């Protein structure tokens, strides 16, 4: 999919399932939300968390989604991450309509197409770094030696080649977040979805992790980053603001192709 030699480290686990951009869909973006709404019901009360959100992200893009708490950005992140499905509208990810998928299909899509980076890192404390990184590959059904090789490579990519046997408790916050970035990379996903990745980090580690995202972007990775910090959002190629379940700058929701980073 990408000529970048870095990708050669991560052979596609299921090449057949990857949509090949053919002549009839030349500009299909990696991710396209069309008029997506999400309403939560609790008893008689209906809360409209998202009201008609439209967004498309092309391959290689680096988008920051900004908004205060209660703006619907968490809901948007859940839908983007296929952790939840929209109430209305459609969501296409990598050419597949995921808005009507069942739970087990969504699990498969999450496994193959998305790499998550969480604010809380969400590393399993009893497992070493490489065991944490290999976790998505376990669910992808890879053999143990193949998993270990790829986990070690991914850890090397984030600069933790000498920490593969360390447990999360033996690593600094910045290093833990690098481990979780490695875990997000290990399946070679089409989309890296980071939810407040620097929210729990000091300024040095924040810079460290953001630099890593810059690097991944330069290597052609598609990144969607959710944050409420302006300086973090500024590192992205473009940012969109969400408030009360809607994007406020509609113009920014479309990719500015060729825009300078």
């Amino acid at each position, binding site marked *: 999919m990408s000529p970048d030699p870095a990708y050669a480290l991560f052979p596609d686990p299921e090449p057949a399932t990857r949509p090949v951009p053919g002549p009839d869909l030349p500009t299909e973006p990696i991710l396209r939300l069309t008029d997506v709404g999400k309403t939560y019901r609790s008893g008689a009360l209906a809360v409209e968390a998202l009201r008609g959100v439209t967004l498309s992200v092309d391959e290689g893009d680096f988008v920051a989604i900004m908004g205060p708490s209660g703006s619907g950005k968490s809901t948007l992140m859940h839908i983007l991450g296929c952790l939840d499905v929209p109430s209305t509208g459609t969501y296409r990810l990598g050419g597949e309509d995921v808005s009507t998928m069942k739970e087990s299909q969504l699990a498969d899509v999450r*496994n193959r197409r998305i790499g998550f980076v*969480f604010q809380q890192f969400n590393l*399993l404390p009893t497992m070493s770094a490489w065991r944490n990184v290999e976790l998505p590959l376990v669910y992808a059904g890879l053999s143990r030696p193949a998993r270990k090789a790829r986990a070690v490579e991914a850890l090397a990519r984030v600069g933790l080649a000498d920490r593969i046997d360390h447990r999360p408790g033996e690593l600094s916050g910045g290093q833990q977040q690098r481990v979780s970035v490695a875990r997000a990379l290990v399946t070679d996903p089409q989309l890296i979805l980071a939810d407040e990745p620097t929210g729990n980090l000091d300024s040095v580690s924040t810079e460290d992790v953001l630099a890593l995202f810059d690097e991944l972007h330069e290597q052609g990775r598609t990144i969607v980053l959710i944050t409420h910090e302006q300086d973090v959002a500024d590192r992205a190629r473009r940012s969109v603001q969400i408030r009360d379940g809607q994007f406020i700058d509609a113009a920014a929701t479309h990719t500015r192709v060729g825009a300078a980073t």
Partner: protein
Amino acid sequence: MSWLETLHTAFDAIRTRRMRSALTMLGILIGIAAVMLTVGLGQGAQKQVASQIDKLGSNLLIVTPGSTTSLTGVRGGRGSATTLTTADAAMLADRSVAPDVKAVAATSSTQTSLTANATNWTTSVVGTTPSWLQVRARTMGSGRFFTAAELAAAQPEVVLGETTAQELFGARDPVGEQVTIGSQPFTIIGVLATVGSTVGGDQDDQAVVPATTYANVVSPTAGTSVASIYLEAAGQDALSAAYQEANNALLTSHGVAETASDFTLSSQESIVQTATSTSRTLTVLLGGIAAISLLVGGIGVMNIMLVSVTERIREIGLRKALGATPRVILRQFLTEASMLGFAGGVLGLLLGMLGAAVLPSLIGQPVTVSAVAAVAAIAISVVIGVVAGVYPAGRAARLSPIDALRSE
């Protein structure tokens, strides 16, 4: 995710919570060991009783008289009637009457005192026929048994049981010595080999005399009536035929109907059943109590699995976000629960086997552990683990990844 991988993950989860897993398994372990030991004890006791009854003879049928009812309506109980006589025994010994009966031995017995030199010993004196030795499957330790001619001549001869001989003569061989029964001197012509059975009294503690001598000297009031008639069927297959023949012959000769029969005909098998029914009831009772402890162990597994699901809610959320389907999560927790059950079962089995090896020397009771019981113990443990795991695993599988990830 492969089964091997699932097992691996479950094993990791159990290993990282060593203390708790060990305590959880303890419930199953104790339950399994308790069930195995109680059932083993019961089976051991039944086996012991059965083997003792086997020593009474082989393919044995026993006829005992019915009960008497006095004029005032007091019923005397089984064997109190004098409806069986030596004539009945003679009739049953007739091949044309009961072709499937191989040998017949009528016996009467009474408790009386034997005196030898300055020693005396009270024991059961049995009057019978020479066929007794064969019918009761006994062998001679020394000397010989009395013959038909001696029976006919009502010789004052006696054959002692091993214990009786020891009580009267110590380690000395008493064959040829004299012993006084009642006031009549008897010559000891043999000592029976020990049999080690205590069913129907210590079978090694008795004095056997010819039936004629018994009627003349030991119990002159008994006349021709006998206390029981032992029948040996021609073989295992002939047992039921022999039973029918003896029953019909006795009913006809006594002139009574089946419903009003004045004798009881029981087989060795029925005696075993009666004798073991008490220990079987006890086994079921104790086994039931042990099974309840096993059930409590199972509830312990369920409890721990529920705690485990609650505690690992973030882990479950993460695994789901990374691509674990509900089915995979369900399988993982079910595997974990059944592994706990299996491990508890194996350890319980080992403890039970250790107990079965040690207990007999402590309490003097045999404990039987069968392969079937061992396999069943393991299977039951796994089933308990799975059953206890279904609810917690279902809860884990249904967790929404968002809620699970969000929880602190």
